[in-house]
Each structure stands twice: as structure tokens, then as C-alpha cells.
């Protein structure tokens, strides 16, 4: 009996590795960038002495120097401190979007595939309908209804991203479901939940992780754009998108540092996430 189970790909265990391989040079560099950014968000605030919200108008638009390593913004706040503290909201927001969307989307995709029939067509209808709402628009609607803030934006984007995840999981799981090992497990009398969760899910996990990585990049851009126009993170809380928004007037007044530094961090993080996601996608397709 168990001989059949061990032939399924799910139960073959790979040795645990800390640092992923098979990503190529670009993937390794991207991973390095992301580790640095993650360190900035976790331990960075403990290393920066300055208060990110301390206003001193006599030090407005200071250039980088001894007292302010990256200069100050229009209100004389220390830019380095704001960028470091701002990385927390800028990264935690998309992280929650990806976790919620991936969790719900995966459950929806696997459920649709396992039950098939009307459950599946209902799920597909739902996916199509949610696709009609661009993420930013849904988040703006949420801001109008529940008030602007990071929570409303994160929840709205989670809903908007759910169909992407569900569609990918559904089409991958659909292929798995027709493979002989699933039939073998059914013959053994394993319930549908156990087959879906313990056998189909591990086989599509690589794809799920790759897509979650790519979603993180889109969510970071969308949330930063929302904070930029004032519907995400609310002032005075520091956030990369909000810092670019606050620096817009500085750009026209010849003090572009505030907007440029935060922009550079956003672009570097998204570029690293996109590259890593592409590599993970290629790798998951190669192993399938």
C-alpha cells in the first residue's frame, strides 16, 4: 500500500538548504538586495538614532552632511531615519497582501479543482468578476468607504490579487489532478482534503511561491502609489511611497533628494523581486 504513496513526487524529500540554488547570478544578486532591504526594515530602526518624525523647520532641505547623512525633507526631518522607518510599512504592506491573497487564492484554486463541476464554474465566474476591478481602483473605493489608511488598502489589494493566484493554482492543480498518482491515492481511500493539501499542493508549491514573489513586487508598487496620492499610509508615518509624494514639491523647488532616494529604494526592491520571481518561475517550470 505505502509503496504507491512513496512513488508520488510529494513524499520525496529534498535536503533542507538555507540559501536557494539554481537561480543564476541575477537571482543571487536580487536575493542579496532583498536580504539587505529586509535587514533595513528589521534591525535598521535600532541603528538609526534620529527620530523620523522630529520636525525642525530651521533645517528644511539640508543637503547630506555630517548631522544628516542623507539630508532633510521640507519639514527638516532626517531623511535617513524616514527611509529606514519607511521601509517597514513599505515592505509589511505588500507582505500582508501576498500572504492573504496567496492563502485564499490557493484554497479557492484547490477547492475548485478538487470538486470540479458547478463549484469550479462558480469559482471561475468569481475569478473573472474580481479581475474586472483593477487593484488601485478597488483600494480607492475602499478608501472612500472606510477612510484612507494602510489597512483598507491592504485588504482591498488582497481581494484584487486573489484571482491571479487562484487562476495560476487552478490551472496547475488541474494538470496534477489528472495524473495517475492522484487516482492511486483515491483508490487507497484518502479523502480529497488530504490529497489536495498533502500531495497536490506540494507539487504546485514552487509555482505558488514564484507567483507570490511576483505579486509582492506589484503590491509594493500599488501600495506605494496609493500612499503617494494619500490613500495608503497616512502622514506623519514614514513610508517610501508617501516620502516620494511629500518630495514632489521639492522636485520643482530644486531639492529632489527626498523623492529620488525613496524612488531608488522602491525601484531597487521591485527590480530585485521581479528578477527573483522570474527565476523562481523558470525553476518551478523546469522541475515540473
Amino acid at each position, binding site marked *: 500500500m505505502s509503496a504507491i504513496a512513496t512513488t508520488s513526487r510529494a513524499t520525496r524529500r529534498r535536503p533542507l538548504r538555507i540559501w536557494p540554488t539554481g537561480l543564476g547570478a541575477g537571482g543571487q544578486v536580487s536575493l542579496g538586495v532583498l536580504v539587505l532591504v529586509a535587514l533595513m526594515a528589521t534591525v535598521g530602526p535600532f541603528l538609526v538614532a534620529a527620530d523620523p518624525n522630529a520636525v525642525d523647520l530651521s533645517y528644511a532641505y539640508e543637503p547630506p552632511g555630517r548631522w544628516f547623512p542623507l539630508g532633510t525633507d521640507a519639514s527638516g526631518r532626517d531623511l535617513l531615519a524616514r527611509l529606514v522607518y519607511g521601509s517597514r510599512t513599505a515592505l509589511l504592506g505588500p507582505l500582508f497582501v501576498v500572504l492573504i491573497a496567496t492563502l485564499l487564492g490557493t484554497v479557492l484554486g484547490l477547492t475548485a479543482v478538487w470538486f470540479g463541476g458547478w463549484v469550479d464554474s462558480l469559482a471561475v465566474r468569481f475569478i473573472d468578476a474580481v479581475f474586472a*476591478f483593477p487593484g488601485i481602483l478597488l483600494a480607492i473605493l475602499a478608501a472612500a468607504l472606510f477612510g484612507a489608511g494602510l489597512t483598507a488598502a491592504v485588504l482591498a489589494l488582497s481581494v484584487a490579487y486573489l484571482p491571479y493566484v487562484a487562476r495560476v493554482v487552478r490551472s496547475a492543480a488541474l494538470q496534477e489532478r489528472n495524473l495517475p498518482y492522484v487516482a492511486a491515492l483515491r483508490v487507497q481511500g484518502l479523502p480529497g482534503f488530504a490529497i489536495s493539501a498533502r500531495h497536490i499542493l506540494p507539487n504546485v508549491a514552487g509555482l505558488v511561491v514564484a507567483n507570490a514573489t511576483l505579486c509582492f513586487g506589484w503590491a509594493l508598487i500599488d501600495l506605494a502609489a496609493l500612499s*503617494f496620492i494619500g490613500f495608503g499610509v497616512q502622514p506623519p508615518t514614514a513610508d517610501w511611497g508617501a516620502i*516620494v509624494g511629500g518630495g514632489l514639491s521639492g522636485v520643482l523647488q530644486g531639492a529632489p533628494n527626498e523623492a529620488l532616494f525613496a524612488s531608488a529604494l522602491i525601484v531597487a526592491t521591485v*527590480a530585485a523581486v521581479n528578477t527573483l520571481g522570474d527565476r523562481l518561475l523558470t525553476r518551478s517550470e523546469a522541475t515540473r
Partner: protein
Amino acid sequence: MTHVSSAVPAVGAPPSKRSWGPALSIVVRRLLGMAGTMLLASFVVFGGLHLAPGSPISFLTQGRSVTPEAIAQLESQYHLDEPFLVQYFGWLGGVLTGDFGTSIIFNDSVAALLGQRVVNTVTLLGVTAVLVLTLGLAVGLLAGLRPGRLARTLLAGATGLMAVPGFVASVVLMLIFVVRLGWFPSYGTGDGGWDRLHHFLLPAVALALASIAYVARLTQSAIRAELRSEHVQTAISRGLPYRFVIRRHVIRNAAVPVLTVAGLTVAGLIAGSVVIEQIFQLGGLGQFLVDSVQKKDFPVVQAICLIYVGAFILLNTVIDLAYTLLDPRISLGKKG
């Protein structure tokens, strides 16, 4: 995916005969699906009013001092004294006849307020679409047909550009072309004609940049894939003129899927235009939406969300239909 009928191409193959019965049924089915999706979207946009904290009327007025006439007006507009479904269909009936209700701030018909602004949004999206389709396809074709250092540089640049959000592109473009060079105005819509284009070009570039990069990469990989395909290799080895093979087999086969995804990419820019309009103060629907959310003018927010979602669904359906009907390799009658 799709199936190419024969590996050896018949030069100037006769157009395949197809009956229009299945095509018509596909059109009808897609249009019905679109209507269903739009109905659901309108339901979400409407139902939001009841999800908001507080009673609908207190949410709509937001503690502003409002005359009893205005409250009566809101109640009749939203049919608030009737059951929920009657409210919804009453509101929907108004929307379908072009009646989006009355703005709480401006005390004017929402349709009239939107009418003044929609031109600016359409201009921005139009210029952006032209940029994405011409530059994206041109760069992609160049990189696909002339592999080498230039192609690799262009593609690496495109990969980097895809990580640049529209608002970051706006900041950088403003810094270079407005502040340093002074070539473009920083905001506003201009006085018609060339001045108008002059005002809209920079925002359109900012909005288009990431999509140009995406379409260029897509075009390049489609061209490379076609060049590697057996029927193209056969055509080249038969000694057909290279330009002829490129025109007749490579570009023709790559065109429909590439144009489809490029079209969908442009449709996806509708939401991004909100942010760009706000930065460059273009006075379109997007800027009005942001203003109205800040001023809590919910009838306007509702109308603009509905128009954006409707336009997005409509464009998607049209592009999807065109793809299904134009590509002879997709067998009609089967789904997708």
C-alpha cells in the same frame, strides 16, 4: 496551445473558409458574459454604500450641514426608503440612462461634471496607447530581428524599466525635462492643438514607460520564437527571400498574440492613469476621483469607479473577441 496547420508553408495560402455560425455564437456568449460581469461590478460599487460604517444617509452627508431638501434629494436618488434590491435596480436604471445622480459638493448633475473632464482622461490614455504600441512594438521588433549587443542592451534596459512605477517615472521625468531642461510645463492641460499635446506628452511617457518595456520584451520573445519555428526555418532553407519570410511568416504569426497582450496592457493602464493625472494636474476623471474621495463626494466616486471598471471590462472583452475571431489557428466553437 494553438496548432499550426502545416510545417511547410503554402505561399499565398488561400483564406480558409469558415462559417460565421460559431463566430456569432461566440460573440453573443462573450457579450452576455460581459454584461454579467458588469452587473456584478455595478452591484459591488453600489453595495459598498451599505458596507460603509453608519447609515447610508449619514455616510453620504458626512456630518455636513445639509438642507432637508438635499436630504430628500439624496433619499430619492438612492431610493433609500425602499428595499435594498429595489434601491439597486432604481439606481442602475438611472445609470443606464446616463443619470449618475447629483454631486453633494457641487450640487450639480454628476454626468455634467464628468462630461467636462472625460476628454482629458481620454487624451492621456490615447497618447499613452500610441506610445506603448509604436515604441513597444518597434523596440521589440528591432531587438528580435537584430540580435546582438544593441538588442541585449535594450532588453536589459526594458527589464529594469519594468520595475519603475508610473509615479517614480513622473518624478524623474519632471526633474529632467521640467526643472533642468525646461522643455515641458509641469502641470495643466494646455490651450488645444499642439499646446495640449505638449502638456500631455510627459505624463503619457511616465504612464507608458513600464508598459513600453513590457510590450518590447514580449514582442522580442514572440519574434525569436517564430524565427526558431520549423516552418520559418523551412522557408529560409527553401531560399525564399529573407524579408519575405519575415513579413509573411514571422511578423504575421507573431502579430495577433502580441497585439492582444499589448492591447490588454493598455487597458490595464486605466487605473494607473489616476495617479499620473493627480501628479500633473490634468483635470481628468482620475484627478476628480482623488478629489472626490478626499471631499467625501460619494455619488461622484461611485460614478467614476463604475465608468473605469466598465471601460476596463469593455476593452478586455473587445480585445479578447478580436483575438478569437482574427486568429485562424484558434478553432471556433471550442472555448478559448
